[in-house]
């Protein structure tokens, strides 16, 4: 009959109007700067590098796998070398262009040394267009504790794996 469908629809909207005052389910807005959602553990945003003891000694060995596999090619690694020019197992520079990175997480997956992980940080706005979003080694390196804090499950699994590795032959981590 004419008009009843419209009235039914209006009933739904007015129910939602009143429900928005009583039920959290009907007022889903999170008032962002004051309220925050707790991040999911697997949430991934931009990659960062992990170091265990000191930032000068990162887990990364500059093998360049992540740079090769990165689909948008946003990672640039230059391997460090000692005084005689012999390549060392650590990066001289490690740059990630956050303006290109598309948060796919493939670098984390392919890294054989568990050195690069996806961060939870998302408030990254900068004034500059190019250089400000180019993250160098100093900004990328974060302690293992940070990783433990944001992703406890993965961190314990990887720590156990690394501990098992170091206990067996204990190769000189040297350099």
């Amino acid at each position, binding site marked *: 009959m004419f008009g009843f469908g419209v009235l039914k629809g209006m009933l739904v909207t007015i129910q939602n109007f009143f429900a*928005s005052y009583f039920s959290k389910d009907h007022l889903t807005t999170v008032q962002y700067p004051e309220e925050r959602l707790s991040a999911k553990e697997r949430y991934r945003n931009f990659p960062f590098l992990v170091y265990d003891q000191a930032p000068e000694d990162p887990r990364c060995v500059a093998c360049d796998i992540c740079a090769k596999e990165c689909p948008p090619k946003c990672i640039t690694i230059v391997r460090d070398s000692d005084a005689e020019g012999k390549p060392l197992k650590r990066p001289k520079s490690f740059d990630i262009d956050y303006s290109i990175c598309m948060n796919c997480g493939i670098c984390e997956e392919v890294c054989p040394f568990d050195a690069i992980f996806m961060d939870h940080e998302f408030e990254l706005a900068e004034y500059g267009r190019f250089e400000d979003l180019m993250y160098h080694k100093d900004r990328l390196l974060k302690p293992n504790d940070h990783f433990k804090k944001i992703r406890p499950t993965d961190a314990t699994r990887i720590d156990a794996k690394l501990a098992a590795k170091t206990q067996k032959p204990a190769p000189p981590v040297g350099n």
Partner: protein
Amino acid sequence: MDQLFVNLKHSILIFAGNFLPEWAVILISILISVTAIAVFGPVTMMYLTLLERKFVGRIQNRFGPNRVGKWGLLQPLADGVKMLTKEDIVPKGADHFAHFLAPVAIVIPALLVFAVVPFGRNMVAVDLSIGILFFLALSSTTTIWIFVAAWASRNKFSLLGGLRSVAQMVSYEIPMVLSVVPVLMVVGSFSTVAIVEAQSGWNWFVLTPWGLIGFVLFFLTGVAEVNRTPFDLPEGESEIVAGFHTEYSGMKFALFYMAEFMNSFTISAIVSTVYLGGWQGPWLPGWLWLLIKSYALILVMMWFRGTLPRFRVDQLMGFAWKFLLPLALLNIFAAGVWLAFARPVNYLLSAIIVALALFILYFANRPDMPKKRVYRYAVE
């Protein structure tokens, strides 16, 4: 309380009369009324925008504006500042003069119709003997300025919007006028004040059979007249971008909005005056009653906006000509019968006529009406 504003004005005038000549007092009296309207109109508009955003927001499970001031109460001011500081863009091929004139001129009829709205007992700016006619005539001139704006913009979307607006005005003006006729017949006067007085003591016209239909008709055509959902074709944002105000920015755009919201306020006020007893009502002061009634109607308009999709052009015309117009005509007949007979019989007779009219129109329109469908599933 009831006469608060009237007494206020009186005391001012008496005070002024002590040392001013009579003509000056009359001038002051006019000035007070004009100022009151000129302030009340835009302020109403500003807070109606906030109310709409809040109300529709809640319907959509959002907060609505709540950042500027407590509960977003300063939001209209922030909007005003934003509108004033925005760049005023005029398209290269536009008719500059008309492009400038339209938004300015469109506010004038919107403000003028406030003159005949009886806000309370003795609270009407001018008690015109042709009050309703004045209102109907002026509110339809808005469309001219909408069309001027559309034409001056030199934009195809604007032009389409303007043409739609004209077609809509032509179609909806007729049922709108006809839906007021029963009241005019019963009251025997065009004056808004007389109409309100005729409804004293719970004799609201909406409580009669013809009044109910007339109320719905007047309200619906009123909604169409002020271009609000589901009749907002002239600015149908999903099809023609923004219709007639596509090429307007900044304060000019705000003026169109001001006209639209003031019109929706006046139409609600007039609908409540004509059918809902105006400022009549128990306990509370009269002006508050009128405000309550008009705001209730405005909320219904916003409720429409929060719920309904838009009509299509041809459906809009069909709805006006095939349903609203014959119903309005039959409603006049029902009102005539109501007038001609004595108390209990007339209610029954006019109710029968109204019910019959609805019934006939429903069946006459049935071929054009959408049908429910039954769906089946593919067999394996």
